[in-house]
């Protein structure tokens, strides 16, 4: 799920950036540092939308670096258990398939794939129904439900299922 929240970070700036463009430099450094990262608590930072406040800089002893506490607004993405997402399949193997929903990777094990879909190996391994009507292969879009998240300090990984109602392939890449 996406959130728009205020986060705080201490940015260290080299004196070469001081001057007229101090603030811009600071902001661009922040965006470079933070966008795309993931914290276990907030999830993935998708984009910085604005700077709320920049505090007074503190010169570090021994070096000339200055530390600014920056408060900024950003869009974050955090998956939750029970959430339903659309994802794109990245890899299929006989244990299940991997899919990505934006920055988060989700694994659907074959136990949670409907029983009527069988694995078929080949140069394009896929899961397909007995009558061939539904096929899950690389780059297919699927709707899945998150049944568990594993949150490390800097990484989030999810397990999903497509065995419930209204889940499964959204559109077939071959027909598109």
């Amino acid at each position, binding site marked *: 799920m996406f959130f728009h929240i205020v986060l705080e970070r201490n940015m260290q700036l080299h004196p070469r950036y001081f001057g007229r463009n101090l603030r811009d430099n600071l902001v661009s450094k922040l965006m470079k540092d933070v966008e795309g990262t993931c914290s276990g608590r907030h999830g993935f930072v998708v984009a910085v939308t604005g700077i709320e406040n920049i505090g007074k800089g503190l010169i570090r002893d021994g070096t000339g670096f200055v530390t600014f506490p920056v408060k900024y607004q950003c869009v974050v993405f955090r998956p939750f258990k029970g959430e339903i997402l659309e994802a794109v399949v990245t890899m299929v193997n006989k244990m299940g398939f991997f899919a990505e929903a934006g920055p988060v990777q989700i*694994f659907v094990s074959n136990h949670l794939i409907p029983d009527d879909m069988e694995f078929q190996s080949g140069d394009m391994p896929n899961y397909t129904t007995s009558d061939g009507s539904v096929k899950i292969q690389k780059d297919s879009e699927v709707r899945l439900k998150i049944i*568990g998240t594993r949150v490390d300090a800097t990484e989030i*990984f999810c*397990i999903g299922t497509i065995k419930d109602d209204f889940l499964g392939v959204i559109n077939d890449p071959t027909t598109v």
Partner: protein
Amino acid sequence: MIEPYNKLVKLAARAFYDDLTSKGDNQPKTGRSDNRGIAVVVLDALTRRQWVREEDLAKDLKLHTKQLRRTLRFFEEEKIITRDHRRETAKGAKIYSAAVAATADATTGKEGEEKVKLHTHSYCCLDYAQIYDVVRYRLHRMKHKLKDELENKNTIQQYICPNCGKRYTAFDAPRLLSRNGEDFDCESCDGKLDVESDKLAAQEGGDGDGDENARRRRREKLKDMLQKMEVQLKPLIDQLGRVKDLPVPEFGSLQAWEARASAAGRAANGDNAGDSKSHLGYNGAPMPYSGDTKVVVDFNGTEGKGEGVKSETDSTSLKVLPPWMITSGMNLTKEQRGEVKQETKMDGTSTSTAAQYTDEKKSTIGHDDKNIQDEYIKAYYAALLKKQHELEEAAKNPQDANAADDPSSSTSIRKVGDKYKRKEDDDGTEWEEAPARGNGIGAYKVDLNVEADAPAEDDEDDIDWEEG
């Protein structure tokens, strides 16, 4: 108050632990030596006790200590009991025994040894609050597991490596992906991982039928299991409901319980005569009163009952008086008269019965009658002297008179023992009663004093006199 909880424990034990064996995995389990269900016995025993030492429990249950410890360790892990391991001397263990004696009305109090070796004693006790929670959690998990399986949802796949047995979950999937991307490799041994399937919905051989049938059979099986579980566990669930609102019986830590129990025991025993050994015991707490010390002393070759502490101290503090110091009317004990070792010529039976009576009465009398006792004894001695004089004169007379005299004296003495039972009613003014009283209380001393006098003063063969 504690009964519903005990019932809960018993139901839970029979429901969940009735196939637990206390044998190790390596030991052969033959038909003869299979002790499945011993866990139930252990739990039942614990419901009847509070804090108990494991050695004592093993002895009571006639179980090998190791097996009992294995079972108790299992229960500790299940959070059903709490254990406490203490290093103590034998004296400390004695405090515990005293505490148990106070709570369980046991009659033994062990005597401590004088060594200061520290052994580790283990104690265990049922933890009722946790039992309630544990049982509820277990039921919840059981139902949850069955329901999940039934609806085929939300179960996180588990993987196991056949080589090294290492287990993984689906969360580890990205790490486990092998180089070819085809399957999962074990991290340590690079073996291909196997999927760990649901144990409850065990596959039948009929997968060829079509998944439809297999699936339906699995569902049926699971539903069946769920239903059976609910029916069989109903009494346990009911008991849980009953127990829910009651306050939990709490025994506290081992130290607290011991202190409480021994204090209670001391209060209960404090009325009885006798002093407690009051030297410091374990942890500086005063040694609790652990029962009357019983001393068995041989009198006349017969075994007397345990006397009170009073008589023991009395006997040890008195010295043997030489015969020339003994004047009539002195209230002296047998030892003082020097009669400890002397064989009695009196018939064993009557004196022993008299002695038995007197022993019993002695312990129950207490200090109340002492004054009266003294008076009566004085009177009795006076009477005795008189009687002896009569006997001497009678001895000079023909034997029949002697015989006639003696039965009366013997009967009077015999009566004395009998009459003594009714001592409370008797006023003691009668001549017969007075010696009865005196005989009863100090009779022990008196009988033998009589005996001592007779040979001392009469060289005659006063067999009849002694028989009385």
